[in-house]
């Protein structure tokens, strides 16, 4: 038996044994019953102790599309802002507005120059930015009709009234598109550079200059709705938000929450989305003292989506981590309640009704475990 043979034999033997811990690691319950006492899982279904709802106009500039249209419940207008150059306007022979619709619905619209400045990050149906209001809700504009047209498939090219060009360039803050007919369509926003809206100036010398929007958004109104104040709603475009609070005092602080699920059966009132997406956010301030101005975590604690094909759709939102935080760290994460919203809220308009009470009302089902015992106590 040579020394080399012996050492190699040992090396292989050691190598094979070292591999043992890495092999065949299944998770079958072998030997688990040797643990004497296992904390049992308990479940509880809580009804909300407070539920409330409010509506809020929200900026929609983060939406990846621009919505234009109206019906008996909603109206959506489009605002576009361009950095047009105030030079050689006399040599401009034609001005064209080019839009790229996403749908095939032939929506008629009117185009006016805006008379009040607005900010894309804060503009809503009521507000020009986060601080100032429109004089006329829905946008202030010069009653100078730049163009009138209809969105057609692929692209729409409209010639703007050249007579109002100086006003458009020098005294306006972009343009506003107002829907004429009932129905909705969308156009591509500035996010997609290749097909974003644009204005093209044609000059006497044959040259052309293209302007792309510096800001764009759509603003949505739902003020014509006959909503009862006690109605509990969740919706998008005009944000309908529902505040729900559950008392968690019955859950022991040391418990491990294995599953917490908010469930309810909503009634779809209105929708322009095939799939409804909902999110639930943790409130970081007390709704009881601050009302609709109470802040909430921007990231949803739970998200769900469903297609409301029938009336039996039960919505489930899993919020295990959030409930665990509330239960085990009530000092650093106080339970101010939940805010149920559309997720995201710039989705095309939809509105669902949530029942305050009864079998379809929201319930929070919590499954939890008590802490385990050590090896000497179990």
């Amino acid at each position, binding site marked *: 038996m040579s020394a080399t043979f012996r050492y190699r034999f040992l*090396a292989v033997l050691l190598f094979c044994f070292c591999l043992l811990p890495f092999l065949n690691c299944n998770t079958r319950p072998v030997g688990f019953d040797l643990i004497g006492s296992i904390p049992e899982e308990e479940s509880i279904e809580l009804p909300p102790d407070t539920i409330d709802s409010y509506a809020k106009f929200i900026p929609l500039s983060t939406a990846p599309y621009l919505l234009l249209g109206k019906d008996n419940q909603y109206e959506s207008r489009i605002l576009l802002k361009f950095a047009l150059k105030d030079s050689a306007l006399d040599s401009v022979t034609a001005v064209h507005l080019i839009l790229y619709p996403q749908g095939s619905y032939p929506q008629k619209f009117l185009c006016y120059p805006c008379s009040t400045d607005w900010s894309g990050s804060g503009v809503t149906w009521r507000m020009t930015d986060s601080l100032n209001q429109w004089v006329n809700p829905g946008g202030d504009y010069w009653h100078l009709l730049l163009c009138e047209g209809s969105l057609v498939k692929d692209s729409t090219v409209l010639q703007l009234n050249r007579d109002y060009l100086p006003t458009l360039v020098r005294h306006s803050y972009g343009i506003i598109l107002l829907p004429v007919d009932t129905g909705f369509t969308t156009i591509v926003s500035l996010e997609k550079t290749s097909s974003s809206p644009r204005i093209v100036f044609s000059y006497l010398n044959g040259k052309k200059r293209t302007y792309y929007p510096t800001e764009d958004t759509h603003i949505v109104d739902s003020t014509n709705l006959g909503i009862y104040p006690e109605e509990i709603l969740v919706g998008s475009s005009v944000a309908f938000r529902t505040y729900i609070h559950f008392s968690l005092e019955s859950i022991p602080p040391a418990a491990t929450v294995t599953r917490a699920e908010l469930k309810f059966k909503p009634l779809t009132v209105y929708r322009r989305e095939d799939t409804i997406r909902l999110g639930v956010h943790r409130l970081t301030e007390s709704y009881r003292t601050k009302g609709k101005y109470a802040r909430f975590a921007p990231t949803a604690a739970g998200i769900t989506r469903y297609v409301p094909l029938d009336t039996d759709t039960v919505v489930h939102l899993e919020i295990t981590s959030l409930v665990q935080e509330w239960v085990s760290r009530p000092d650093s994460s106080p339970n101010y309640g939940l805010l149920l919203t559309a997720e995201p809220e710039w989705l095309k308009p939809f509105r669902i009704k949530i029942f305050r009470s009864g079998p379809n009302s929201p319930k929070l089902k919590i499954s939890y475990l008590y802490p385990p015992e050590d090896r000497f106590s179990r």
Partner: protein
Amino acid sequence: MIFNKLLHFTFCILLTFPNLKVCPTFAQSFFNPLGLGEVVGPGFARSNALGSPSALSPINPGFFLNLSKTNFNISLLTGGTIGRQSNNNRAIGAVRPLSLSGGVPLPTRTKILVGIEQRFGQDFNLWSESLSNTTRYHIIGRGGIYSLNAGVAQSFLSRYCIGAQFHQIWGGSKEEWQFHSGDGSIGADTIEVLYSGTTTRIGLSVSLPHSEVGTLQLALCYDPPLNLTARRFKHIHGVVTDSIRSYSIKLPHTVALGAVTDALGEARINLGVELRPWSGAKIDGKELGYRNVWRWCIGIEYELLPNHPLRAGYSMGNWYCESKFSPKPISEKGVHLGTSVPITNFGALDVAGELLFRKGATSAGPLGETAARLILTLSYQEIWAKRTRRWGY
């Protein structure tokens, strides 16, 4: 060449076999959640190959008949365990250092002894059945109870040796209770236990020369009752709660006896017995419900080739603890094999392989496990001539 091919083949199997899940599951025994865990034997390959007779191993401070050499041992354990219960099989494994010991002789036929040894192992890894539709427990236990020891051995008349060793007990275990749902891990509670205590181990051995049937050596190792303090901390979801608690554990004494003889010529026979009368073990004054158990082993060492002793052993015994729901003891039988590979001008590499068969009754039916272990001990032995010059006698 054949070994290179074998290594290559093993790698290929691991990487290409479609149903083989490769992930670490470090644990020693499925029975380790019970009591203080598995009693760890001497932890030296030479002893393990002979059935782990404690009294005839370096952990016995009185078993140093040749006290004239500086020696040093370090051991590594690697092994895998397959558990079987109710048509379920599961494999776990562990790689870890096992023990460390050393001795330095003094001119007065005295030897200073130091070492680290593991007394109890508490590594386990268990999965539950589903608690409800989706949730499962996954409990991972880590740690054990160790002792840091220092002592002295004294030889008399070249036939007797007596030794005493002070043991500072320390160690800790950490049990992580994870709760798994279909979406992944939900949370984890952690239970930590820190152990401390002191004890003094006493050892004795005697060599009885016999001209006709060879030499007989007898050894005794006595561990007096051990008082352990265990401090428990609970971390609920990462937050230390107020559930800190101290336990006072009293473990009765342990006696180990051993005998080795070369009456069969070149074959040395080793016999070992361990007694653990632990039915009186208490925690905070209450009985723990442990058993009085004993363990015996027999081993044979034979030099098939010069400087290549072949060792084999057999052992059997019961665990001191049992399942709460079943009064039947956990039985353990072991087959041990080993050899030594001499290392020139250094000492030897001792190798031992063990197959342990354990069986216990639980509320869910019998649980059996087969543990395969490889123990490697790098053993340094000072060369007599060098030491003579150093000490000058």
